[in-house]
C-alpha cells in the first residue's frame, strides 16, 4: 500500500520537474537548437533517464520490502532541482553570451554523468544483500581510510583557489572531503554505539567540566585536531565546520550530554580564532563577509551579485529562467541557492528548505525506528550531517556567516558530492529495511 504512495510521490516530483524543464526549454530555445543541432529534444534525455532511474530504484525497494517511502521522492526532487537549475544556468549564460556558457553546459552534462555513477552506487547498495552493521566491524579501517584520504590530498592534491582540495587520478578527479565526511560519520556512529553501554552508568554528574569521560573527550579532541588540520593545512573552513558540527550532533545523540557540545563549540571557536590571526585568507573571507562593498568588483563581487539576486527574487521570484543569476560567479556550486531564490523567490526558496528539512527529519525518523543503537546513531548522524552542510552553505550565501565553499547537498554542481550523498541515502535505506537480529541487547 505504502509503496504505491512512493510511486505516486515520484510521479508528482517528475511532473513538477518536467514542467520546469519545459519552461527552461522554451525560454532558451535558440540556445538548445544551437547546442544540439536538429535535436533540441535531447535536453530532456538526461532528466528523463534520471526519472527512469528513480522508478527502477523504487522497484528494487518494493522487492526488498522497504518500509521507507518518503526518502526516494525527496532525494529525487532535490537531485532534479539541481539538474534543472544547471540546465537553466547553462541556457541563461549562453543567451547572455557570457564567456562561461560553454563550461556551464559541460557542467550540466558532467553532472548527469555523475548522477549516473551515483545511481549505480545506490542501486548496487540496494540490490546486493548486505547489512549496514558490517560497517560497525570495520570502523577503525574506515577511520584510517578517511585519514589516509586527507593525507594523500595534502601531499598530492591539486591547488585551486589557494586550497588543495582536489585529488587528480588522471582519469578521474574528485574532492576527498566529501567521502571523508561520510566515512567519519560512519566511524563516529559505530564508535559511540559500541561505547554506549558504558555510558549509562556514568551519568549523574552536573557542571560543565566535572566528570568528563575520556571515552568521549578522546574522540572529541582527536576530531578537533583533525578539523584543525583541515583548516590549517587545507584551509577549508567550510568542511571543517560541517564535519565538526555533524560530529557534535552525533556525540550529543550518543551521550545525551550537552556539555560536550558546548565544550566542542568553544574548542572550535578557539581554533577558528587562531586561524583568523594566522591566515590572510581567513581574514579576507571575514572582511568580505563584514563589508562586501569594500571590494565589490573584486573579492566581494560574488556575494554582492548574490544579494542582488535575492533582492530581484522577492516573494514569488522572477520566474524560472526569468532572473539572471547566471552572472554570479560560481553560481553552479556555492551560489546555486541564490539562483533558485532569484527565480523562485522567497516562497520557492523556503519550500526547497522545507524539502531539505523533511529529508533530514526523515533520516531522524529512520534512526528512531531502528531498534539497533548503531542504526539509530548512523541514521541520525547522517541527518545531522546533511542539515549542517546545508546550513553552512546557505548561511554563507545569505551573508549570515562568512562564505565557504561546501556544496548544497544533491543540488550544487559537484560530482563527488552527488555520488557520496547518494551513497549516504543508500546506507540510510539499508538501515531502514534491515531487520536487526534478535540477539541485539535490549535497550
Amino acid at each position: 500500500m505504502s509503496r504505491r504512495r512512493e510511486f505516486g510521490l515520484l510521479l508528482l516530483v517528475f511532473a513538477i520537474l518536467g514542467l520546469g524543464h519545459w519552461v527552461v526549454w522554451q525560454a532558451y530555445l535558440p540556445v538548445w537548437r544551437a547546442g544540439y543541432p536538429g535535436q533540441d529534444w535531447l535536453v530532456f534525455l538526461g532528466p528523463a533517464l534520471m526519472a527512469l532511474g528513480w522508478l527502477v530504484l523504487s522497484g528494487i525497494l518494493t522487492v526488498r520490502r522497504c518500509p521507507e517511502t518518503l526518502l526516494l521522492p525527496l532525494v529525487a526532487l532535490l537531485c532534479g532541482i539541481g539538474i534543472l537549475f544547471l540546465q537553466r544556468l547553462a541556457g541563461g549564460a549562453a543567451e547572455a553570451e557570457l564567456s562561461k556558457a560553454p563550461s556551464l553546459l559541460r557542467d550540466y552534462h558532467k553532472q548527469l554523468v555523475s548522477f549516473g555513477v551515483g545511481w549505480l552506487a545506490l542501486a548496487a547498495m540496494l540490490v546486493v544483500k548486505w547489512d549496514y552493521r558490517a560497517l560497525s566491524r570495520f570502523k577503525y579501517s574506515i577511520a584510517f581510510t578517511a585519514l589516509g584520504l586527507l593525507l594523500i590530498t595534502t601531499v598530492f592534491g591539486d591547488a585551486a583557489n589557494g586550497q588543495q582540495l582536489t585529488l587528480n587520478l588522471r582519469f578521474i578527479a574528485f574532492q576527498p572531503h566529501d567521502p571523508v565526511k561520510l566515512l567519519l560519520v560512519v566511524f563516529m556512529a559505530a564508535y559511540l554505539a559500541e561505547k554506549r553501554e558504558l555510558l549509562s552508568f556514568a551519568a549523574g554528574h552536573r557542571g560543565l567540566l566535572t566528570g568528563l569521560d575520556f571515552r568521549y573527550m578522546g574522540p572529541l579532541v582527536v576530531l578537533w585536531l583533525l578539523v584543525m588540520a583541515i583548516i590549517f593545512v587545507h584551509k577549508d573552513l567550510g568542511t571543517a565546520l560541517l564535519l565538526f558540527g555533524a560530529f557534535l550532533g552525533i556525540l550529543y545523540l550518543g551521550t545525551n550530554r550537552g556539555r560536550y557540545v558546548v565544550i566542542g563549540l568553544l574548542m572550535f571557536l578557539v581554533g577558528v580564532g587562531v586561524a583568523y590571526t594566522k591566515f590572510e585568507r581567513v581574514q579576507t573571507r571575514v572582511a568580505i563577509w563584514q563589508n562586501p562593498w569594500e571590494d565589490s568588483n573584486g573579492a566581494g563581487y560574488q556575494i554582492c551579485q548574490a544579494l542582488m539576486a535575492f533582492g530581484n527574487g522577492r516573494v514569488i521570484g522572477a520566474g524560472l529562467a526569468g532572473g539572471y543569476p547566471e552572472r554570479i560567479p560560481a553560481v553552479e556550486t556555492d551560489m546555486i541557492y541564490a539562483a533558485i531564490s532569484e527565480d523562485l523567490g522567497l516562497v520557492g526558496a523556503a519550500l526547497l528548505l522545507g524539502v531539505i528539512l523533511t529529508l533530514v527529519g526523515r533520516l531522524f525518523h529512520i534512526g528512531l525506528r531502528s531498534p539497533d543503537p548503531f542504526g539509530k546513531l548512523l541514521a541520525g548522524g547522517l541527518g545531522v550531517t546533511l542539515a549542517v552542510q546545508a546550513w553552512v552553505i546557505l548561511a554563507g550565501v545569505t551573508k549570515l556567516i562568512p562564505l565557504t565553499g561546501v556544496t548544497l547537498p544533491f543540488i550544487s554542481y559537484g560530482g563527488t558530492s552527488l555520488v557520496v550523498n547518494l551513497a549516504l541515502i543508500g546506507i540510510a535505506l539499508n538501515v531502514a529495511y534491515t531487520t536487526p537480529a534478535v540477539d541485539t541487547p535490549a535497550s
Partner: protein
Amino acid sequence: MTPLALTLLVVSLVVGAALCAAGIYLRVPRMAMLRGALLLIFIIFLLRLAYWQLLQGDYWQQMSVYNHLRWVRSPAPRGLIVDRQGYPLATNKPALSVWLVSGEVPRDDWDTLLERLVAIGLFPDLKAARAQLEYCHRFPGYQPVRIGSRLTLEIVSRLEEELAFLPGVYLKIEPIRHYPGASTAAHIVGYLREINAEELAAHANAGYRLGDLFGKAGLEREFESELRGMEGGEQVEVDARGRVLRTLSTKPSVPGETITLTLDVAIQRAAEQGLHGHRGAAVVLDPANGDILALASAPAYDLNVLSGKVSRQMLAWLHGSQMPEINRATRGRYPPGSVFKIVTAAAALEAGEVQPNTYYYCDGVYHGIHCWKRSGHGALSLTEAIAHSCNVAFMKQAEAVGIARLSAMGRRFGFGATTGIDVLRESQGTVPDPEWAKAHGQHWRVGDTLQTGIGQSALEVTPLQSARLIAAIANGGKLVHPRLVRSVGDRQYPATEPELIGLKPETVRRITRGLRAVVGEGTARQLDPALRIAGKTGTAQNPGGEDHAWFVGYAPAHAPRVAVAVLVEHGGHGGAMAAPIVESIIRAALQPTNR
C-alpha cells in the same frame, strides 16, 4: 547591515542556549532537542533570507535590474618630469574623452549608434567605427572603454548635444599628458602611446589594460613604472542616464613620482634655438660635477603631436632620412676633427715631447697630408698650434707620441666607451689603433697615426663624449660622469665624483692657454671676449659630404661654470658655424637670472 547580522547571531545564540538549558531541565528527549536545535538555526536562516528578499529587496532589486553598479577607474596622475628649477617638461592637463559602456547599448541599436557617432565626426567612416566596436567587445559589458580622446571643441559640443540619443556613451574629463615645452628636450622626455599587445603581454602582472598609455620613448619609457603611479577607483551607483547617484566605496589613486632632471630649461632652449634649422646636437655640462644642463638633438619634434593621432606626413618624416628620432647628442657618431687635437696635445705633453721651447714648422704639408692652410703656418708654439689648429704641428706630435700612447690618452678622456648615463641610449664611438685595424681586417700605417692625431682616420665620438673632454680640461683634469636624473620621487640620484685621469697640472695649464688663444686670436676669434670663452674648433671631414662643424668650449675661462659641445652636421667650418651657437648657449647659461 553588518551590525544587524551580528545582533541577529548573538541574539540567536543566547536564545538557543536558553532553549537548550530549558530542554535539559525539562528532560526533553535528545532527538527532539536535536530537531529543535536544527529547526532553530534554519529558522534563523530563513529570517535572514526574508531580510534580503523582503526588507532589503527593493534596494537590491534596483541595484540588479539596471546593472546600476559601476566601477569607475580613476587613473593616477602620471608623475611630472621637471628641470632643475622645477619647471615642468612633462605634465598633465584635463581633457575630454568619450567612453562607451557596451552593455548599456540595446542589441538592436548598435548600427544607429555607430551611424550617429560617424555623423558627429568621432569616426571618419562606418568601417573605423565598427573596428572600434570590435575592440569594445573585448571588455565586460559594464566596463567603460575609451573610444576617443583629445577631442576638438566642435566634436565635444556636438556630442554633448546628442548625448541623450547615444545610449552607453559618456563624456569624461581625464588627465592627459601635456608637454608645455612642445619640442623642448624632446629626445630626453619621450612620449606616450596606447599600450600595444606585446607590451601588454610583457607587463601582464602590472595591471595594464588595453587603452592604457605606456611610455614609448625617452624617460617616459625608462621610468614608466615610477611615473605611472597606482590606479584607484570608485564603486558608484548610477541612474539610467549614467549620472552618479552615490559612491559606495572609494580607493584613492596614488600619483606617480616626479622626476627631477639636472637640465636647465633656459639653457636647453638656447641650445635648441642655436641648432634650429640644422641637424646636429649640443651638450652642456657642469664641469664641476657632470650635471647635464642641456642636451639637445636637432631636428626635434613636438611631443604633444606625437602623443595624439600622428598624420601620415609626420610619420613619413619621422622615419625618413633625417632620422629625427635618433638622439644625436648621445647616439650620433662623428669624426671629432680638430677637437681631438686637445687629446693629441695632452698625450704629447704627458710624454714630454713638447717642451716650453718646442716649436713646430708648418710648410703646409706633412707626409703628403695637407694642413688646412695650404701655404703653411710657419713656426708655431704649442699655444699657437692649438689657436690656429695647425694640422702639421699635431701630426708631428702624434708621430712622436705614437699611436699606442695617443689612443690610450683618448680612452682616458672617455672616448670609445659609453659615459654611463643609463637612462638614455648611447653609442660607444671608436678610438682606432693597430689592434682595432687588425680586428677589422685592415693594416695600420703611419698615415693612420697622423690622421688620428688630427681627429680623422676611423675616430668616432659622440657630442656627449666631446663635452666630457672639454669639461675635463675646464675642471683641471677630472673626467666627469654625466648625470641627467637628479631625483625620482624621494630618491636622490647623487652625482658621482669626477675622477682624476692623471694629467700633470702643467699639461692642463698649457692646453688651457691654447684654448684661450683659439678665441683670443685663433680660429674662433669672432666670439665675444666679454664672455671669456675658451674652446676648440673642429672641422671634420666625412664621407657624407660637407664637413661637420664642431666647437667645444667652456666659460668663464678663469673659473669655468659650463662646458659646451656643439656639432652641426655638414655645417662647414667649426669656427663659423658651431662657435656662434656655443657663444649663444654660454650667454644664456651665464645670465645671472638663470644660474
